[in-house]
């Protein structure tokens, strides 16, 4: 058999399986997770596939346990991932903050299901947009990518691993139940670009500063435990050598850097797919599974001669502010279709201010927008 990490070829694959294959392709060495619908099959796939690639699957005792194992293993030198649903993210929040503060590259998959609370385990929603971004205490930033298909469950999982390394930040896949169970064609290429961990250029020894940021960089290099660098890892506000500090300047510099290493690179991290924008008078924005209906509705509207464009947000966090402002200003009206009470819509409103009228097309989960429903909205608004 060939490379166990890269099943090059054309497959009919379920979204969760594609996510697991993306993780393997990206170099994931360890998966720790807790069974939860609709993300269990990612764990099952990893439990079966990771050992074939020489990797480790360990079932967490819960979501907290899972993410602590992931973070610990990353500092031990591995690439690691966990996968859960929104209520699992609730349990992980403390560890997410820890990963953000310790700048631990890791991938957290959130296959969103209807909430709040237990909600409906087997039904889709997009309600976790804010909880992956703002769920832990204090101020930090993360990256979140929203796939629309099993193909993107593969592609974006690879990208999530790479961005996590590049920015030293927990990176989320913000999927939903529909993508968990959707089976479609997935093309796995013969080669995948993998970003390695950035190691220090200085030799190990006394005097190495765990948190010293080289000039021109956003993050410090990241040695592993056992490399001899005498790492001082903690989520304290701390000086460059790791000593806890209560100084305003220390807090200011850390929080600003944790925030800006992602937010100041929002332009670079913007991932969108759009169409029919040139002469559009109305723009429809969506993400994830709902974006499939958004695109279908825009196509149909064009067939009817309506001047409608669409925009699918792939990178949800950092929010693509400049992009949305740019495309939103060209139209008079914007519809945001999402399976929640208007979270991305609120971000779009923030970006556009009075430049365009922003209309929410909301479904709180279980039933996804059909293309016809969005088309009806378009006809009403235009």
């Amino acid at each position, binding site marked *: *058999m060939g490379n*166990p990490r890269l099943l090059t070829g054309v497959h009919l694959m379920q979204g969760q399986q594609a996510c697991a294959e993306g993780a393997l392709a990206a170099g994931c*060495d*360890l998966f*720790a997770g807790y069974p939860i619908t609709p993300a269990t099959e990612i764990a099952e796939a990893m439990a079966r596939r*990771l*050992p*074939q*690639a*020489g*990797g*480790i*699957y*360990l079932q*967490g*005792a*819960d979501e*907290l*346990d899972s993410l*602590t*194992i*992931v*973070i*610990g*293993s*990353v*500092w*031990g*030198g*591995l690439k*690691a991932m966990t996968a859960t649903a929104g209520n699992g993210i609730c349990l992980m929040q*403390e*560890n997410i903050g*820890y990963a953000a503060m310790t700048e631990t590259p890791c991938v957290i998959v959130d296959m969103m299901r209807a909430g709040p609370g237990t909600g409906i385990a087997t039904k889709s929603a997009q309600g976790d947009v804010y909880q992956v971004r703002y769920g832990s205490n204090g101020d930090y930033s993360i990256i979140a990518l929203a796939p629309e298909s099993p193909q993107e469950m593969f592609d974006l999982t690879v990208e999530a691993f790479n961005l996590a390394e590049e920015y030293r930040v927990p990176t989320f896949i913000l999927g939903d139940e529909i993508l968990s169970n959707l089976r479609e064609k997935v093309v796995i290429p013969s080669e995948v670009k993998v970003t390695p961990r950035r190691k220090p250029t200085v030799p*190990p020894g006394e005097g190495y500063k765990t948190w010293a940021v080289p000039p021109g960089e956003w993050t410090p290099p990241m040695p*592993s*435990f*056992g490399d*001899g*660098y*005498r*790492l*001082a*890892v*903690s*989520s*304290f506000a701390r000086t460059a*050598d*790791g*000593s*806890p*500090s*209560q100084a305003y300047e220390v807090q200011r510099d850390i929080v600003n850097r944790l925030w800006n290493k992602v937010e100041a690179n929002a332009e670079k991290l913007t991932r969108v797919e759009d169409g029919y924008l040139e002469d559009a008078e109305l723009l429809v924005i969506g993400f994830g599974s709902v974006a499939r209906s958004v695109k279908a509705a825009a196509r149909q509207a064009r067939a009817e001669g309506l001047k409608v464009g669409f925009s699918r947000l792939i990178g949800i966090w950092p929010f693509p502010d400049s992009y949305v402002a740019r495309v939103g200003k060209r139209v008079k009206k914007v519809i945001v279709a999402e399976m929640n009470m208007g979270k991305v819509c609120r971000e779009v409103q923030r970006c556009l201010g009075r430049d365009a009228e922003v209309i929410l097309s909301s479904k709180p989960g279980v039933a996804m927008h059909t293309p016809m429903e969005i088309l009806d909205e378009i006809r009403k608004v235009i």
Partner: protein
Amino acid sequence: MAEAPVIATEDAEVLEHPAIRYFRFGAPGSPHIWCEGCGIGQVFYYTVIAIDELGLDPNKIVWVGGSGCTGRMCTYWKYDYMHTLHGRPLGFATGIKLANPELTVICHMGDGETSAIGGNHLIQTARRNADVVAICVNNYTYGMTGGQYSPTTPIGSLSATSRYGLVEDGFDLCQLVAAAGATYVARSTTAQPRPSINYIKKAIGKKGFSFVEIVSQCPTFYGRSNKLGDNSIAMLEWMKNTFVRKEQFEKMSPEERQGKRPWGEFVDTERPEVVASLHRLARTQREAYRG
């Protein structure tokens, strides 16, 4: 940055404290945050002496801790440390060990961290039998937050949150961890330095989950609140009078056992260890895949 203290003897010969070369200086309030008379520094000393006597490469030893007075201990280890979240050091430690089985991973945790917020991590790590060392400094107190009762505090104890006497009884952590499957379990006190060092040495050498409970004095809170002494000497006397050797304890009648607690080694056994098992599994499955 603080200078390493030196001890001048009468004939002006300058000796370095044996733990100094493992101590990380530079933290605010250096050399450490602990109160006068606290036993946590003794456990730091026992651990580094155990490491020293075993002749281990300190660059291959990671100390892990969480929140609280004991949780802070890892930050004074001069080599790799990971100061994690309250109650969760064992999860992080398992991850580190899985990533690099060559590392020795030692967690120092207080009683609250070990058995309240971290209780599930404790029993799960014991059940998995992950090759990490857990040293619980049990002073029956949440010290950093000002002396509240913990899950090890004995019934009737006075604390900041049991002003009228505690109505719950505490865990026997050694029994708990033994039942959960740890392969090495021992208890000592800060009144027994040599056994404490020996237990830590055995715990580090054991291939599997090792748990050493070291009962320690908190004269600031637990000792003072319960009239066991507001200084370390009085509390060490209390420990000497309270803790009896396990072998002796087992021979005592129920009446004689009143107010007494056993110390010694409770478990020293072998079970499959999860980190080695998972790496073996990865090797065989990878080879099977390659055909």
